[in-house]
């Protein structure tokens, strides 16, 4: 039996239990000792690269693991809770294209609540990638092999033991005793422990970007996964109460960033389209708490829609500045925008302004940012007005220019509620009569005296009340059977759900006996595909 306890894209923590045995995954064990059937699989080798015909003839399901092979028939599915092994997975680690293709094939074929074993594959230098690919169980074979070869393993790579074992680079028991085997095993165990904490913290992606630099093939694996955006996105939390670091060149392609960009273009609805002003970002988040933005806002005085151009998020409409990851990202700043980010960001700008036709667009940017906006707007068929002059958008001249440019435009406050609801739930809500009340940390959306939403401080997400859900057009609904939830809703209780649901999303639970509000613990695919685990953490239940 296997239950996933936390998801970070394909990476997850879980618990596998069978009789006396309990494994907290990801973990490394002596698999053959724990699963003795592994020792009785003589002559059963089927290389990963074998074709369907060969698999059909020679692949036998035997022993304690369900054996998954990229070419085995589509119809052959592991059961929920099973232990799944992908034999010889170590042979594809240097073949990124097939690595990613096969993970996608196999992972979408079998239920999510299965424990995946990658035999002979795990090294301290690659196990982050393996875990981030959805593997849960590992053995000591690869590190022990290195030991037999006189190779010292650490989280950066593999090195000659004669230099490293006494080189002072590690203070473990193995190193102190000069015991290479012990060191290598500890190194692997420690690395897995590190990854587990990263999953729990929600920073596995940052770690993965770092660890991928260990080898070209690991970088390529990361990039191929990123091209298959939907795969990881579907199980990536919608928000986290922590910073998101976009330190690497690959960060711009991480699921959270692409998702944000896509929602700004496809879901988000601006509440005025007479005039927009594109502003620079600020290191301080939310932007409006920075000195520079206080200046811009003072000059604009609600006479245009404020949209922030930033790397790597592209465009952040003012209404969304507090929501994850807009209020949470941190990025290395040098003043230089590389061509790749220019390209990706420019495309978002183009798409946004092609979709949302403003009558006038003001560009209050300088340097590379101004060029990106100019080129993108041109492609969208817009001739903007540039308001930043001289050396900086915050200079006295620039601010005066901006102020003058706004002359005559009507004042209209940003509709934060409509903006956020469109972004978060993909609905266009009539927000007349709705107002935000309360001090930071305890903000609520009210209509008359009825609370519709509370605003979560750490993430910026809106948490609907039952009354709030009435405005959301049935989106983000989880359908359950005819029971009244006692505590959280488990996956088997779910009979259907909005495919857009991601871990961490606010959801509306609906059954014939009760309705409830809560937060999704898993994505829609897992809710439907799993037989174990908490699907929705319930906040409030109402019998009907």
């Amino acid at each position, binding site marked *: 039996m296997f239950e996933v306890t936390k998801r970070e894209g394909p990476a997850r923590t879980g618990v596998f239990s069978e009789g006396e045995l309990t494994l907290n995954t990801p973990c490394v064990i002596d698999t053959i000792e724990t699963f003795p059937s592994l020792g009785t*699989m003589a002559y059963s080798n089927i290389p990963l*690269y074998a074709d369907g015909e060969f698999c059909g*003839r020679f692949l036998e399901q035997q022993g304690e693991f369900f054996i998954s092979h990229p070419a085995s028939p589509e119809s052959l599915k592991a059961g929920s809770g099973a232990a799944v*092994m992908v*034999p010889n997975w170590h042979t594809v680690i240097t073949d990124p294209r097939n690595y990613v293709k096969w993970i996608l094939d196999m992972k979408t074929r079998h239920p999510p609540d299965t424990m995946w074993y990658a035999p002979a594959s795990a090294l301290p230098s690659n196990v982050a990638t393996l875990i981030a690919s959805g593997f849960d169980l590992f053995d000591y074979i*690869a590190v022990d092999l290195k*030991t037999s070869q*006189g190779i010292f393993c650490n989280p950066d790579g593999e090195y000659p033991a004669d230099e490293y074992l006494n080189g002072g680079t590690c203070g473990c028991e193995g190193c102190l005793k000069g015991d290479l085997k012990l060191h290598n095993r500890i190194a692997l165990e420690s690395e897995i422990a590190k990854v587990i904490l990263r999953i729990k913290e929600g920073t596995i992606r940052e770690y993965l970007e770092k660890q991928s630099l260990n080898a070209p093939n690991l970088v390529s694996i990361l990039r191929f996964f990123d091209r298959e955006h939907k795969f990881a996105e579907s199980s990536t939390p919608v928000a986290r109460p922590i910073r998101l670091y976009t330190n690497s060149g690959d960060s711009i392609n991480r699921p959270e960033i692409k998702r944000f960009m896509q929602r700004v273009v496809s879901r988000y609805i601006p509440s005025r389209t007479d005039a927009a002003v594109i502003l620079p970002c600020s290191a301080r988040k939310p932007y409006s708490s920075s000195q520079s933005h206080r200046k811009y806002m003072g000059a604009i005085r609600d006479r245009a829609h404020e949209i922030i151009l930033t790397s790597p998020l592209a465009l952040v409409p003012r209404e969304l500045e507090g929501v994850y990851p807009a209020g949470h990202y941190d990025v290395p700043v040098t003043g230089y925008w590389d061509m790749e980010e220019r390209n990706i960001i420019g495309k978002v700008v183009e798409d946004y302004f092609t979709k949302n036709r403003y009558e006038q667009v003001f560009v209050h940017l300088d340097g590379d940012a101004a060029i990106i906006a100019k080129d993108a707007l041109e492609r969208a068929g817009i001739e903007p007005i540039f308001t930043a002059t001289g050396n900086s958008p915050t200079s006295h001249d620039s601010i005066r220019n901006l102020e003058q440019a706004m002359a005559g435009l009507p004042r209209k406050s940003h509709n934060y509620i409509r903006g956020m609801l469109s972004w978060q739930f993909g609905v266009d809500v009539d927000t007349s009569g709705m107002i935000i009340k309360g001090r930071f940390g305890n903000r609520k959306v009210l209509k008359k005296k009825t609370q519709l939403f509370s605003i979560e401080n750490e993430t910026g997400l809106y948490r609907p009340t039952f009354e709030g859900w009435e405005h959301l057009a049935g989106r983000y609904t989880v359908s359950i059977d005819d029971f009244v939830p006692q505590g959280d809703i488990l996956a088997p209780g779910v009979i259907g759900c909005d495919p857009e649901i991601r871990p961490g999303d606010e959801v509306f639970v609906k059954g014939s006996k009760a309705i409830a509000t809560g937060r999704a613990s898993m994505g829609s695919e897992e809710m439907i595909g799993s037989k174990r685990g908490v699907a929705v953490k319930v906040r409030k239940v109402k019998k009907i």
Partner: protein
Amino acid sequence: MILDHQEKPLASWTGKDRIDGKIIDCLTIIFKTGGCSWNRCLMCGYKFERHDHKDPLFLKNSIISQLNWISNNYETGKFRLIKIFTSGSFLDPVEVPEDARNEILVRFSDKIVIFETRPEYVNDKVLDEVANLMKQNEPGRNFYISMGLETTNDKIREKCIDKGNTFNDFRNAAEITKKYGAGVKTYLMMKPLFLSEKEAIEDMKKSILESAPYSDLISMNVCTVQSKTEVEYYWKRGAYRPAYLWSVIDVLLNTDCGIHVTCDPVGGGKKRGPHNCGACDYDLVDAINNYSLNADREYLKAHFETDCKCKNEWKFILENERPYGMPLTS
């Protein structure tokens, strides 16, 4: 005697071979023929070394022409032993037309001849004919039929080699062979596809012991990575590794079947052939070759007992390489 039309065989070379405890001069010839009719073995790279024509007359002329090239280019009188290979079966009449076959046998009827065939072509009719053609000019056998049994395990032979026949087929053919006073030379194949290093060793040890009762000579081939084969397909993808030389020696030293098992580790020390780490390969290949010829067990044993940095790795592989996690090295 020498004809005008002379075609060079696919290959030919001279050497020394050990037969019945004696070392004798030997000429090996590989004829280009119509090619193996089975032609499916996963490791076989001879598939493409054949005439496109299947016309029997054309084939006959070509083969006889190759025979003439041999007569013209070697002092054939010097050699006591002639080893004949085709890319398939010498006794397959589709591949080697009967008259061509007979011409060859007649030409070498004063020598010991070893030729290779698949067991399905060994039958009373053909053997009777062959035995009659071979003069009996000295005591002892004057011809041997060599057959690629590869392994005595039918399952392995099917999955890992796709040989298309059984141990039983081999035994039947061997009995027929013996009936006509000929010797049986058995070819075994060490580490075909899909076997772990340990499985390969065990299979080979068992195969030697089980095939010995039906064999006069046993030659162990070690699987190599030949062009455009299934083996190469997997090898290029890191899914196949040729045997360690340590494994080869282990089999040779630790299998006592009463027959001296010979082994020519073709491609030994190369990536595509049986190899160790690169440091010890040259010496070990040399020791294996020496053993094949001189049957000097002690010399081979001494080499097996020398140490090299890769020996630990090999021992580790034997204990830890599993069918679901292999190959562990390359």
